[in-house]
C-alpha cells in the first residue's frame, strides 16, 4: 500500500465530504475533532505527569468523550438522510435533548473533578 494510493483516497474522501455535507453537520464534525484533540492532549499530559488526582483525569476524559458522543448523536439526528430511522424527529427536539444530556454531563463532571 504505497503513499500515492493513500493520498488519493484521502483527497477523494475530502472532496466528497466537502461536497455532500451541509454546513450544520460540518459544524458538529469540527466540534467532534476538537473534543478528540482535547482528550488526546489530556491523556498525554496524564501519561507524562502522572495520574495523581485520577478522578480529575477521568472527569476530563469523560467530559470530552461525552460531548463527542452527544455531538455525534445530534449530528445523526439532524442529518436529513436519517429521518426514517429517527421517525421524523425535529431538529429542535434533537437539540433540546442534546442540551439536557450535556447539562447532566457537565454537572457530573464538575462534581467528579473534586
Amino acid at each position, binding site marked *: *500500500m504505497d503513499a500515492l494510493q493513500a493520498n488519493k*483516497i484521502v483527497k*477523494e474522501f475530502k472532496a466528497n465530504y466537502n461536497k455532500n455535507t451541509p454546513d450544520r453537520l460540518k459544524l458538529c464534525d469540527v466540534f467532534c475533532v476538537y473534543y478528540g484533540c482535547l482528550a488526546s492532549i489530556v491523556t498525554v499530559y496524564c501519561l507524562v505527569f502522572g495520574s495523581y488526582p485520577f*478522578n480529575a483525569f477521568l472527569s476530563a476524559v*469523560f467530559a470530552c468523550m461525552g460531548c463527542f458522543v452527544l455531538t455525534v*448523536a445530534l449530528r445523526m439526528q439532524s442529518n436529513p438522510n436519517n429521518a426514517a430511522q*429517527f421517525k421524523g*424527529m425535529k431538529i429542535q427536539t434533537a437539540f433540546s435533548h442534546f442540551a439536557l444530556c450535556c447539562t447532566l*454531563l457537565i454537572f*457530573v463532571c464538575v462534581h467528579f473533578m473534586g
Partner: protein
Amino acid sequence: CTFYAFSKILGSLLTIMETPTLLLILTLVLIYILAFAVRLFSVLRFESVIHEFDPYFNYRTTKFLVDNGIYEFYNWFDPMVWYPLGRIVGGTIYPGLMLTSAATYWTLHSLSFTLELRNVCVFLAAWFASNTAVVTYFFGKEVRDRKTGLVAAALIAIVPGYISRSVAGSYDNEGVAIFALILTFYYFVKAVNTGSMFWCFWAVLAYYYMVNAWGGYIFIINLLPVYVLTLLVMGRYTHRLYVAYCTFYVLGTLLCMQVHFVGFQAVQSGEHMAAAAVFFILQAHNAVLFVRDHLEPSSFKRFLRIGLVGMLLLAGVAVMLGILTGYISPWTGRFWTLLDPTYAKLHIPIIASVSEHQPTCWSSFFFDLHCLVFLFPVGMFFCFQKLTDAAVFAVIYGMTSVYFAGVMVRLMLVLAPAMCVMAAIALSTLLTTFFKDLKRRPKGAKAPVEATPLRFYTSAAVVAGLVFLLWFYVIHCTWVTAEAYSSPSIVLNAHGSDGHTILFDDYREAYYWIRKNTPADAKIMSWWDYGYQITAMGNRTVLVDNNTWNNTHIATVGKAMASDEETAYRIMRQLDVDYVLVIFGGLIGYSSDDINKFLWMVRIGGTLDPSIREVDYYSQRNEYRIDNEASKTMLNSMMYKLCYYRYGDVQLEHGKPPGFDRVRGAEIGKKDVRLERVEEAYTTEHWMIRIYKVKPEDNR
C-alpha cells in the same frame, strides 16, 4: 373543588399521554394494590418486624442515616463491627436502599405522617414491588404492546420468585434494585426504539439508582453490550442503537463512578471492560460507515483493508497492555462463580457456604415461577415471529437470566421479570389470536365472517385452558407466598400436638439479654451469620458479620470454634472476646443451628490453619456424627462443648434418653461436658441461643 381540579388535571394528562382507557388504569391500580397486599402475610400473622440476617444491617445503617444526616452517613466509620478492624461503612455499602427509606421517611414526616422508621423499612419492599409491577407494564408495552404490558404487570405482581425477596419485612437491596433494573431496561429499550437522547437521559438516571442500590448492576452493564453485539451481528445496526448505547455508556459509567463503593472500578475492573470494548467497537463501526458514505466503492475497499487491520492491531495491543500491566484487574471470585459454578467450592469456601449461592435445582424453577416456565419458550417463539429490536432485547435478557438463575438460587430474582415478560408475550398473543374467533357476527353488513363451529369451539377450549392455567397460577403463587416465603426467620413457629401455635422468640430474647446485661464495650464472638443481628438488636461489638469481606478474620473465628478449649481460649483472649454465642437447635428440632453449620466452620478455619482437617471431625465410618461414634476431635471441639453443656441432663420425652438431639436424631456422645475457660451466661427458653462468658486469666 379540589376534586374537580384533580379530575381536570387527570383529564388533561390523559389527553397528553396515549389516552389509556379507564379500564386500563383501573386494572393497573388493582395490580398495584394486589402486589402490595400479597406481600403482607408475615406482618399480619406475626408483627411488623424485619426478617432474616442481612436486613438488620441495612436497618441499622438507615437508622444511622436518619439520626445523623447524609454527610455523617457517607463518612461513617463503624468501630462496632469486625473488631479490632472496624469497617468504613460509607465506602463499602450500596446506599440506595438506605437513601430511599430515609427519603420516604423524611417526606412522610414533612407531610405530618409520623411513621416510625421501622415501619417504613418493613413496608418499603412491598411498596416498591407495586412500583415494579407498574414499570413492568411500561416495559412490556415498549417490548411489544399495551396488552403484553398489562399481562406482564399482572404476572409479576404475584410471581413467587420476586416475592421471596420483596416480602414485607425483608429489607434487603433487591427490594429496590429490581425496580431500578426494570426501569433502566424500560428507558433503554425506549431509547433504542425512538433513538432519542431524552430517554437515554432517564435510562442513565435509573441506572445510577441501580448502581446505588445493588451490586447486581454488573448484570446491566454486561447485558447491554451483549445486546448491542447481537444486533450488530444480526445486521440490525441503526443509528438509534448508536445514540442509545453510546450516550448510556458514557453518562452511565460517569455516574457509576460517583458511588463510593464502585469508584474507579468502573474503568479498571475486568467486569466493566465488556461495555468499554463494545463502546469502541460501535465507534469503529460508525466511523467505517461514515467513511463509506464519502468514498467510491473501490477506494473504500482499499481503505477497509488497511484501516481495519490497523485498528484491530491497536485494540489488541491496548488490551494486552492493560492485562499484562495489571491495570485492568481480573475478574473477582464472585464473578467467576457465575460463569463456573464449581469454582467457589474449590477455591473460596466462604462463597460456597452461603445457601443462596448454591446452584438451583429444577424444582425451584417450577416452585418460583409455575406456568411461566413453559410459557417462556412460547413467548420466545412469538418474539421471533415479529422480530423487533426490543424483542431481541427481551430474548437476550431472558436467556442470560435463565443461565444465571441456574447457577445461583439468589439470581432467580433477576429471572422473574424476564419470565413474566416472555410469558406475557405468549399469553397476550395466544389470547388475542383465539379471542378473534369467539366474536359473534354483529348485526351489520360489513361484518367479518363468523367462525365455523369447529373454530369457535377450538378457540373456546384454548381460551378456557389458558384461563384455567392462570387460575392455577394464582392459587399456586398465593399458597407459596403464604407457606414458604412469609416466615420471619427471626421468630419461628411450630404447631403443638393439639394444634395451637408455639412461637419461638429466642433470637430476640437473647439479643435483648445481651443489650441489657453485658457491659457496653463487650465483644461478642459468634459465627458470621448473626453478626448483623447482634449489632443491630444487641448493640454490642462483634468480631465478624455477614459482610464477609475479611476471610482471614472469619477463618480465625472458625478455627476457635473448631479447636479444643485451650487453643480456643488463647484465640479469644487475643481478640479480646468477652462473650461467645452459639445457636443450638437440638431441643426444638431447629435445623439451621451451628452444629449443622459446623463443617463449614472447619473448612473455612482450615484455610487459615492446615492442621484443622475436615476428616478429623468425621466418625470412624466417615460420617458426621455427634453421638458416641463421633471422633475425639469433634467431642473436644469448642462448638460441641458450648452446644451440649448441661444438655446431657435434659430429658425431652419419656421415650427418649436424656441428652437426645432432635435435629441429628441421636443421643449425644459426651454428656458430662466440662468447661474451664468459659462459664455459661445465658441460655434462652428453648435452648436455641447459648451465651457464654469468657473467664479472665487465672491469677499467677
